[in-house]
């Protein structure tokens, strides 16, 4: 059980964004992705999660082992907190949402409709979803957006617990999460170089 990325290269909107990305995650490891806006963090995470094909390179991970969490939370405004969680639990073949609700400090909101949550509460609900997937590799895209400091700490504890249990986490973020054990992977050196446009020519990829 591990996630191995080797010489990965990915594209967005037909243009290469990143290339030569290689790293390995083993049980109990966390990796933080860093890089300025637009450097391709979201693109990389979507590629690893299997939502878009890689341009080149290898992604090795056991089938159905990745839990992906994106900028958007996939929360239904008219369902309650428990209903939202119970749905994702059922989809992943898990039962029971009580733990997740308690761990993300949502107990007092359990029966509230998602549309009546504040932005930070909504985000907590989105993170609670990770707990009900039962998957070992968390791939998180800016998980702490709009969380207040207490909730960030809560989230860091959650990740630590997950790692202690043999889980893995790959997190793109701009802020300091308070996870001293995590490795940092800087994406800046991996910016894709554009192939030179052939002089007046049209090569296969039009670039």
């Amino acid at each position: 059980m591990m996630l191995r990325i080797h010489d990965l290269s990915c594209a967005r909107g037909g243009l290469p964004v990143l290339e030569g990305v290689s790293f390995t995650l083993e049980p109990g490891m966390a990796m933080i992705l860093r890089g300025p806006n637009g450097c391709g963090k979201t693109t990389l995470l979507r590629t690893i999660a299997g939502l878009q094909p890689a341009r080149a390179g290898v992604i090795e991970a056991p089938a159905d082992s990745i839990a992906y969490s994106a900028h958007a939370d996939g929360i239904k405004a008219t369902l309650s907190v428990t209903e939202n969680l119970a749905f994702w639990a059922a989809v992943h073949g898990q039962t029971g949402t009580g733990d997740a609700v308690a761990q993300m400090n949502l107990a007092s909101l359990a029966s509230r409709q998602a549309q009546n949550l504040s932005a930070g509460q909504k985000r907590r609900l989105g993170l609670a979803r990770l707990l009900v997937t039962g998957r070992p590799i968390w791939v998180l895209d800016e998980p702490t957006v709009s969380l207040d400091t207490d909730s960030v700490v809560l989230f860091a504890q959650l990740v630590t617990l997950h790692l202690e249990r043999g889980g893995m986490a790959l997190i793109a973020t701009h802020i300091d999460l308070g996870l001293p054990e995590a490795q940092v992977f800087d994406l800046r050196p991996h910016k894709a170089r554009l192939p030179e446009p052939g002089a007046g020519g049209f090569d296969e990829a039009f670039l």
Partner: protein
Amino acid sequence: MSALLIRDLRLALRAGGGFGLGLAFFLILAVLVPLGVGPEPDTLSRIAPGILWVGALLACLLSLDRIFALDFEDGSLDLLATAPLPLEAVVSIKALAHWITTGLPLVLLSPVLGLLLFLPAEAYLWLILSLMLGTPALSVIGAFGAALTVGLKRGGLLLSLLVLPLYIPTLIFGAEVVSRGAQGLSVATPLALLAGITAGAVALLPFASALVLRINLR
């Protein structure tokens, strides 16, 4: 799987879920046609099978963009695509949910609208039967169209343009069943063909829809 079905049904029934709008549209259309065409029972009863089928088809059509667009916008579709469900199953279940919230109520409402259009008495059975057999195909074909246009802004009219031609065989056989039934002719052939189209569409189209959806997500 059933969790997805239950969620989709629940969302449709909650406030703002749009359940009943398709039905209301069907009703309004059945009212508009006599207003446009004129009140003679003869004419109306002759065209009733066709109009009811066209109406069902349009009502279905107008609710199609809800199948995937809402889930796409709030990110659920990404998460569903990475969930252990095969995307083909997701597509089929969403089409089923669409049918239960749109097609099935249309089937149940259609006899009432038959009354408004002076549908001959012999035809009611065939109307219900043909809609029952045909509307699932409408939902499945519609899900394909919705998957094609899911990333587009205001794709509604484009969706109609793409889907309506695909609806033609279903419409022809469906309306033919009812009008033959109304005239007391044998309906076996068109009924069998209608069933064949539905079976084929239900069995094969989800693969195309899932393919297209995957392309739109990436």
